[in-house]
């Protein structure tokens, strides 16, 4: 498909930096600080999970068995694979294999799409059984034992899903810029930063999956 090779564009260092290296390092520190705040953002949900589980241990065991661990495991595999394709996209751009890098980005985007589709089916199957967040919970005979778990489930996976969607937007942005030849071995900061973000989203899921589906 890559009939013409992509013409690489020289990167101009922003006026307030002395060197490209300084520019890259600043972006990297900034990104790590941002990731730290993301971790703290999700951490409150994990604390809420722990407290609610402590208050209602039976509810959590009952409710978690209602989630399909097969779907969860499938999605976990999908996300871990997408982290791998993301790593490859970053690595390829560093050695100026831009077309390959773009293909890996497209693969990552596709896997993210698969994740969201599976999530869609999980959500709708819950809705069809009357399982909503706590206040609107109508599943028969289950009210006493299940609702808060599903309240947390929808909030946690919903916020995680929102991060996936934002990540998909960022990956599309990368693909468009990479096609114009803006990324190459001299300048690949955005690819690397989105990569970091993507791994974070992956790691959050790796914690959510066992806590919600398995335990």
């Amino acid at each position, binding site marked *: 498909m890559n009939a013409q090779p992509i013409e690489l564009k020289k990167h101009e260092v922003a006026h307030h930096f002395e060197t490209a290296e300084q520019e890259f390092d600043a972006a990297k520190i900034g990104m790590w600080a941002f990731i730290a705040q993301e971790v703290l953002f999700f951490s409150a949900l994990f604390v*809420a999970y722990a407290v609610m589980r402590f208050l209602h241990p039976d509810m959590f065991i009952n409710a978690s068995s209602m989630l399909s661990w097969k779907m969860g495991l499938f999605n976990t595999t999908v996300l871990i694979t997408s982290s791998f394709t993301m790593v490859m996209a970053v690595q390829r751009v560093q050695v100026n294999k831009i077309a390959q890098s773009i293909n890996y980005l497209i693969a990552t985007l596709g896997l993210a799409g698969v994740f969201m589709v599976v999530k869609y089916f999980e959500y709708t199957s819950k809705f069809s059984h009357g399982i909503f967040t706590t206040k*609107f919970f109508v599943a028969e005979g289950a009210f006493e034992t299940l609702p808060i778990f599903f309240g947390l489930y929808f909030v946690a996976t919903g916020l995680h899903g929102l991060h996936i969607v934002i990540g998909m937007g960022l990956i599309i942005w990368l693909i468009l810029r990479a096609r114009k030849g803006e990324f190459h071995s001299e300048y690949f900061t955005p690819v690397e930063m989105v990569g970091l973000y993507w791994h974070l989203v992956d790691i959050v899921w790796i914690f959510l999956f066992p806590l919600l589906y398995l335990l």
Partner: protein
Amino acid sequence: MSDSSHVGYLEAEKGLKSWLFTLDHKRIGVMYLFTVFFSLLLGGLFALLLRLELLTPTTLIFSAKQYNQLFTLHGAIMVFLFIIPSIPAALGNFILPLQLGAKDVAFPRLNLASYYIYVFGALFSVFSLFTGAVDTGWTFYTPYSVESSTSVIAMTLGAFIMGFSSILTGVNFIATIHKMRAPGMGWFRLPLMVWALYATAIIQVLATPVIGITLLLLILERILGVGIFDPTLGGDPVLFQHFFWFYSHPAVYIMILPAMGIMSELVTTFCKKNIFGYSAIAYSSIAIAIISFLVWGHHLYVSGQSEYASMIFSILTFLVGIPSGIKVFNWIATMYKGSISLETPFLYFLAFIFLFCIGGFTGIVLGALSLDVHMHDTYFVVAHFHYVMMGGTVIAFLGGLHYWWPKMFGKMYSNKWSKISWFLIFVGFNWVFLTQFVLGASGMPRRYYNYLDQFQPLHAFSTVGTWVLGSGFLIMTIYLLHSLKYGKVASANPWGGITLEWHTKGPTPIHHNFVDTPQVNYGPYDYENVEIPS
């Protein structure tokens, strides 16, 4: 001065668009400054109104509900719209790159974005004013905040959005301090303001997301009924308090740490002396930042938290006094044998020491478990945190504003009026809040609309104090605005400071700040080796 590189950043580009789309940290700082100052006046107006209502024990002007809305608006506006962004985002934006000898912050576009995110969030909060205001208090405690019919969602969404702005500023400052320092400026040649902003940025990045998710959970609780905070659904309302204070106690240090940074700048410049105990002050900023994450439970002594947890939180709370004390002693030691000049900014330094000590010591009193059970939710608490937030942060903000005003705008304000205004603010402040210590200790609960007749004399006395305090701010607003147009042209270094911001020649140029990148060979306050720039 006809060289185009010597046009100041204010004149370099013209028109509204050149401001609204600017990426220059100085202009963004100025936009923040005007926005937060406006918020200060708005929050202050609400304070005047609610104190007016408290003039008598029964209804005077407002209904009980309106009164609840007033103190919520006063608190929420002062905390989220004014104090949190005041020093880091307004003064810090302007001064940080200059003190580092840098051309800008690391991410100028992110910087502008965080300003607009702040404005957007602030508009949400102001919008809540017209859709029923909020009557929960600025702490939004559940379960009432879930049930209240007022527009809790607009206000908390506003605070949530402003939180993002604060996080992005923190991210930006961390990267800037790590990577944008002038050649030769190692970590121990950083001005102490920079250390303070660094510690602040760490808290902004690590604590703010927790209030973000907490407020989001509160909003979702209202819309979807998640149940986590709702006891009728099996949730735990105290969990909200834990989450809230996990952010909001460190947030107190988002407010006070940069204020302490300003103090270090003021005391050295106006004593013309090297700081006493540089590294002790620098490390104590970091120590305060760390301890701040471990003390939130002192807000929950009477919320049913376990006694052992309360004891531990009480001990940890006392620990905050150590690094704070280290700073105060070092500032006072710096004054010893200095050539002190009592300019307006230095008067604010003196006021800060006096008021912050009262605020700090009463904080230790409240941190003590047995006393707090008695004092909890009384005017004693109100007076304590006003001494820290207003006596500490706002006074430092005003000190910094008067210190950097000539650098920011190239104009001098009236010396006489600034001192009169300082005097009114200092006297008015103590008038209002010393009284409230007495009120609280004798049992007056906070947030009450009506009160027992026996408290009226002190309440009325406190209310009259707000008029003195308010007139001080009114005078300040007038002479500062007046100076913008009619003020005397200020020299590049009117106070004889030697940190890098005073080395810029004439009005600070827009794109590169310094004509030549400065080379740093000495400590930031080394008056013996560094020549005072003219």
